[in-house]
């Protein structure tokens, strides 16, 4: 059984949740785009459901809440170290099915791939996920192809239609407030996308041999190594460590981890000045094969969830879907023929 709520009723429910949770959702940050008088849609705290953006994909993903862009791990002075504080409240995160599948990737990276990451786990344990019903793909989305179009492991799911919110809420903690404020009850099944705008087919014969193909070369000139694709990606998790010293004697400061990108120049920089992947094509190869080949070998499922953000944000119009559909088959053909 689900609940039917008006904007005001859901806002009241948010208020009830707010003792324990901050609500995060894709929302408009007006005027903060790359270009003047353009907006960015990204995750921020919301108190009014009307501020949640339903009709467009967010430029950046929810991962900024679970893996903060800049996260202080601890503060140090001489012989003492103090752990940084976590937010007091937990988080209720509104996200679409592709992104909820991305949570599975983050969980794998931080909780199952070796020892648990304490910082991730501490935040993760206090998060509730609200699935945003998604009834049509945005340009360049391909969740159906990646098998991420349906989610059932949510704490709540919402369809938003004609100004009314229809909520299914298996989570008892969140349900209490919804029940209090609901204006009606009804059966709710979260909407999901059934057909991609562009179907994406990862070649079945794809192997790491493709690394040697020439398909990557064109990206040497096209890609500007800005890293937007990975910063916007909900499944990219790489970070750099930064030790910041507050004083020149080096005795007080903080250690923080900051998101980074395999597209950045210092990503494969090693002591002595060596840089393993200098060319943009090499970095593109590394990223693409991680998303649709290497990760799966380890985890058993593909890393890419088909959210389409990397395509949408690339200033040079480099498309991952184009790479997968057109370039990868070409590259495999090339390396297989060369092998004969």
């Amino acid at each position: 059984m689900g609940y039917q709520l008006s904007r005001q009723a859901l806002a009241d429910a948010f208020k009830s949740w707010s003792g324990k949770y901050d609500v995060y959702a894709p929302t408009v940050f007006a005027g903060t785009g790359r270009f003047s008088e353009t907006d960015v849609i990204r995750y921020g705290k919301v108190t009014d459901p009307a501020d949640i953006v339903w009709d467009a994909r967010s430029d950046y993903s929810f991962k900024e809440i679970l893996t903060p862009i800049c996260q202080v791990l601890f503060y140090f002075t001489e012989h003492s170290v103090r752990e940084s504080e976590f937010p007091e409240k937990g988080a209720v995160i509104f996200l679409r099915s592709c992104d909820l599948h991305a949570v599975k990737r983050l969980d794998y990276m931080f909780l199952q791939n070796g020892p648990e990451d304490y910082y991730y786990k501490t935040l993760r344990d206090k998060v509730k996920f609200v699935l945003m019903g998604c009834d049509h793909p945005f340009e360049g989305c391909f969740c159906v192809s990646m098998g991420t179009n349906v989610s059932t492991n949510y704490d709540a799911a919402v369809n938003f239609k004609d100004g009314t919110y229809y909520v299914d809420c298996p989570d008892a903690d969140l349900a209490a407030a919804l029940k209090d404020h609901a204006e009606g009850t009804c059966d709710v099944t979260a909407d999901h996308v059934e057909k991609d705008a562009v179907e994406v087919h990862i070649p079945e014969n794809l192997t790491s041999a493709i690394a040697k193909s020439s398909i990557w070369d064109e990206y040497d000139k096209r890609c500007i190594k800005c890293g937007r694709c990975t910063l916007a990606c909900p499944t990219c998790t790489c970070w750099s460590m930064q030790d910041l010293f507050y004083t020149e004697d080096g005795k007080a400061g903080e250690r923080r981890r900051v998101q980074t990108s395999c597209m950045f120049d210092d990503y494969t920089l090693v002591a002595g000045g060596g840089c393993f992947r200098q060319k943009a094509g090499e970095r593109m190869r590394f990223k693409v094969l991680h998303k649709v080949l290497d990760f799966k070998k380890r985890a058993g499922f593909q890393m890419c969830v088909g959210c389409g953000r990397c395509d949408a944000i690339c200033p040079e119009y480099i498309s991952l879907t184009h790479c997968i559909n057109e370039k990868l088959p070409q590259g495999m053909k090339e390396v297989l023929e060369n092998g004969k």
Partner: protein
Amino acid sequence: MDMNCGKLKKYAFRVTKHRNVASARVRVPGGSLNAKVLGQVQYIAETYGNGEVHLTIRQGFEIMGIPFDKVEEVKKALQPIIDELDINQSERGAGFEASGTRNVMACVGNRVCPFGNYDTTALAKRIEKAIFPNDLHVKVALTGCPNDCDKVRMHDFGVMGMTEPQFDATRCVSCGMCVRKCKQLSVEALQMKNFRPVRNVEKCIGCGVCAWACPNRAWTRSKEQYFRITLLGRTGKKNPRMGIDFIKWADADSVVKIVSNVYAFAKKYIDPTAPGGKEHIGYMVDRTGPEEFIKFILQDVNLPKKAEIYRPLNWSGIRYVGLKSEPFYVGKDVNPADLAVFQKPLPLK
């Protein structure tokens, strides 16, 4: 043929080198128009003119080959264009009044340009509304960013879009793209310190390249749009020169007010013998000195707190005639013996 040439020119017609033939000039404030204007320009050119149209330097059309006896009909045919472009006019059907103050020019601005810091055409139209029609010779040009594609420093008033970069350290990933791009494309106002870019406020010209370059929205533009105003650039035969900086971090209201204020100054100080009642503002300022000029143009202007006014104002440029000495000729004006001192070789150290 009897033709009142002054009246003809007042309505933006050119008296051409061809006897009894004019050309009709159409100004497009801010340089952007609905394509249907082009249809009417074509109609006029083919119906009344010789079919040729020149794209003018100041973003207008010069419809060529209009016989004098068709001028009145052309004025009527221009009305749909005037309506479409929403141009100030004192009498409907009388054509463009545009004899002194010139079309307010604009680069394409942020309607399409990734670097444009504001809607240049919209501000150009706002200025047009404030100053047209006017017989005094004033040139205003707008450009979206300090790259100055519109060459606004060649005008009496140049307006360059600026933004005050806003930095959100929590979104910075230390990639260094802003520092690199500021160095490559702008003035090297950013430096990396403790994993973060630090902005040299003095050096920064507000171009917005950092906000354009930042991949993660750590750098964004200020809500407020700012402007650099440059003064009294000019072409011309006497002393062509670039406009110089007047105000950094002005706002749009101040821009409109400052430009509007120039007319009171010009009315008072124009050379009464100037041909056709037209004189570059700059020559008036050459006579009055800049302080008197500034007193007029800053009348009732409320600049934002951030605004910086440049002082003193000194122009240079190429001077073919004017305040400095005339070219002199050896033998006629100067005794050759006096020049000997310049011809001695320098002593070797």
